[in-house]
């Protein structure tokens, strides 16, 4: 059920958001009442029984069974309600509807990749149809990550060497943020993706376009697109500025010093190897943190990226003239 945002909660756009928000708000209101009770009583006592000059003997009663039973019992009942309510929705979050579309999610430092049953893959953007349950089968290639979409009220850790599962059914077309919420190193806060919820027709079209890799584009154009969509941009700039990894600008054809002490020429083979097996040769001065794109990129996509990096060389040359 859709919910509108409040001061506390962002708007909700999944089938379970309504239930989560209802419980959140119930606890919020109950808490406000209890809090005000404690604060007003304290304030009242402090003012009413403020010490005048010297303290004398004070009132001696130090227990009251009825009162004590009441303030144990009432919170206990409230808490049992909250417990049962919370658990029931939690179970729903864990029981995946049978007809769900199954998408494979991979987390790695520091991006998300998605693989659809039709063979389409995407990076940092997951496109799903409206009003259809979607099952996510998730695993990590390195450390623990966590898949969090605030507007859907779902979150699940993504672990190496095992699968974790979560699901959602989006109720409203739009674009929603996807965060990594388990600390995973330097680029943790850049590990942000998008969930794009579209109509069923648009979804079918998107899948169609995805199966044809970069058709109707030159390799270079396709590479430029992949540079952003496959998240190279998180670590490599194209304007010469140093990021987590070296910039692509003007690199092609140069000879670089590696951490091993070797000098290596940046050619097609080196770039290909760096994409598929990044730890083989690491440029001196950089940490060996790049993830492998083995299995993420198709061979035409690797070709396109190489072409794109080459094109940055030519631009750099023209600038220098």
């Amino acid at each position: 059920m859709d919910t509108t945002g409040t001061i506390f909660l962002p708007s909700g756009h999944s089938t379970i958001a309504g239930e989560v928000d209802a419980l959140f708000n119930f606890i919020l209101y109950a808490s406000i009442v209890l809090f005000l009770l404690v604060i007003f009583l304290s304030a009242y006592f402090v003012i009413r029984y403020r010490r005048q000059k010297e303290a004398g003997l004070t009132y001696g009663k130090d227990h009251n069974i009825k009162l004590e039973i009441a303030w144990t019992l009432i919170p206990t009942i409230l808490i049992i309600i909250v417990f049962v309510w919370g658990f029931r929705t939690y179970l729903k979050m864990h029981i995946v509807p049978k007809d769900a579309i199954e998408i494979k999610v991979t987390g790695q430092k520091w991006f998300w990749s998605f693989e659809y049953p039709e063979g389409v893959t995407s990076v940092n953007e997951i496109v799903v149809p409206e009003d259809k349950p979607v099952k996510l089968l998730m695993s990590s290639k390195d450390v623990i990550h966590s898949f969090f979409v605030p507007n859907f009220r779902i979150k699940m850790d993504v672990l190496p060497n095992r699968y974790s599962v979560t699901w959602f059914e989006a109720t409203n077309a739009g674009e929603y943020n996807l965060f990594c919420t388990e600390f995973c190193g330097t680029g943790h806060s850049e590990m942000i993706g998008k969930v794009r919820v579209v109509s069923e027709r648009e979804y079918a079209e998107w899948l169609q376009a995805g199966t044809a890799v970069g058709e109707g584009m030159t390799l270079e154009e396709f590479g430029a697109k992949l540079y952003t969509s496959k998240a190279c941009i998180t670590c490599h700039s194209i304007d010469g500025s140093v990021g987590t990894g070296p910039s692509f600008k003007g690199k092609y054809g140069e000879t670089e010093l590696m951490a091993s002490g070797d000098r290596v020429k940046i050619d097609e083979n080196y770039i290909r190897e760096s994409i598929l097996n990044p730890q083989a040769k690491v440029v001196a001065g950089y940490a060996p943190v790049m993830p492998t794109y083995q299995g993420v990129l198709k061979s035409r996509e690797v070709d396109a990226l190489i072409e794109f990096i080459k094109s940055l060389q030519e631009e750099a040359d023209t600038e220098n003239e």
Partner: protein
Amino acid sequence: MNKLPDKSYLNDPKGLKSWLLTRDHKRIGLMYLYAIMTAFLLGGIFAMIIRLELLSPGKDLIDADTYNQFFTLHGAIMIFLFIIPSIPAAFGNFVLPLMIGAKDVAFPRLNLASWYIYILGSLFALYSIITGAVDTGWTFYTPYSTETTTSVISMTLGVFILGFSSIFTGLNFIVTIHKLRAPGMTWFKMPLFVWALYATAIIQVLATPVLGITLILLIIERVVGIGIFDPAMGGDPVLYQHFFWFYSHPAVYIMILPGMGIISELISVFSHKKIFGYKAIAFSSLGIAFVSFLVWGHHMFVSGQSELAAMIFSFLTFFVGIPSGIKVFNWVTTMYRGSISLEAPMLYALSFLFLFTIGGLTGIFLGALSVDVHLHDTYFIVAHFHYVMMGGTVMAFLGGLHYWWPKFWGRMYSEFWARISVALIFVGFNVTFFSQFILGSQGMPRRYYNYLDQYQPLHGFSTFGSWILGLGFVVMAVYLIHAIFRGKVAGANPWGALTFEWTTPSPPPHENFDKIPTMEHGPYDYDKIVPRSTLAESD
């Protein structure tokens, strides 16, 4: 008549060596106080830097790796070097024997040893800062902590060593409380701070070894390469989380129970009234101590544990909440028909009531399974644990610091400046951390160096609050240090309290009491006796 005693634990015997080799619990308590205040300062500096970095998205001050190291250092220092030892080691050492009318703790040598072990552990932890720091968060989750290139080993080794210090202090207190109470002090005539220390000591002794073992396994994995937690070597990363929280959840109560003990003292003394529900408070401390061992799984509701496990942990979590709620009601009721004076320690106690109630109530959101899924690992958590640990424990710590300061030094601080500082801290704290509840429920994840623009206004507000908070602490440092040298002489019992530590001169003599005190009345019998306040005389 108002002058300090000629001879006290501070100057008898004299000389640096007599301090370094002292077996006097009061000196050891004071040495702990210096050490943990240094740690607090250091942790606070890191906090101010991370808060400043978060003023706006992107880079303001430091790069991502440095940020990650700083929040880890901030958390690790605050937890392991400051808050766990703070109240038990500094105040517990200083006042526990005085409160039960003993000459010292049961094992004075072990006590001194635990101080040196604390220093050694801290040095290891600090060494890691020099050698490249750690960037794992204070929780050291695997497999990140087995892969990162930072100096995880010296930090975890430091924490491992600190654990021994904590265990020794706990052991010492348990035996002291069992064996050394003054004649006539039955269990139910002990001050509630003593009960709290007792419950804490049980957790310290039972839970800390598990943390020690976990960290050693982590070190073995990193050094020898045996796969325990790292899946790349055939280990199980979630196992680490189970081990870690099996200690660290009870440890949360190592942090808060002593604080609750102080609050029981303060509310009673400054309301000049018998504490309401003495037994309920005492037993709820023990109850909390036991149940706290059974709730660790509530840190792992989204780690992929079974629904059944999640259900059980959620249920039990709520049941540790109830005793804390009961305590709050007892404190409030204690003020009813009292004679309340609002000196600085009481202002801290009232701040505690306000902030800890918020901390506790927000815990209910996190115990509710479906809601926790949304809030886990966001700024809501950051706000929640700061309300509990800083709004709770640190406020109690500061209350205790002001309450026993005249006992430590025999001199009084400036009440005027103390009120200014408590006001700054209270306001600054709420500005800094309340905004984070909203940030978190809006979806802002924690441990983020960078963030989306939509979160900027609240982050900016929070950073602004941290300046007010920081200013409050600077003011406090100035007037407290001033008080040591120039403060008005306080006399034996400035607050008109009834517990034993106020029957001996301030600062107390080396052997604590001229003659061992006997129990003539309960620790809170303000309905039968009006104690004389030495402060009123000197005015």
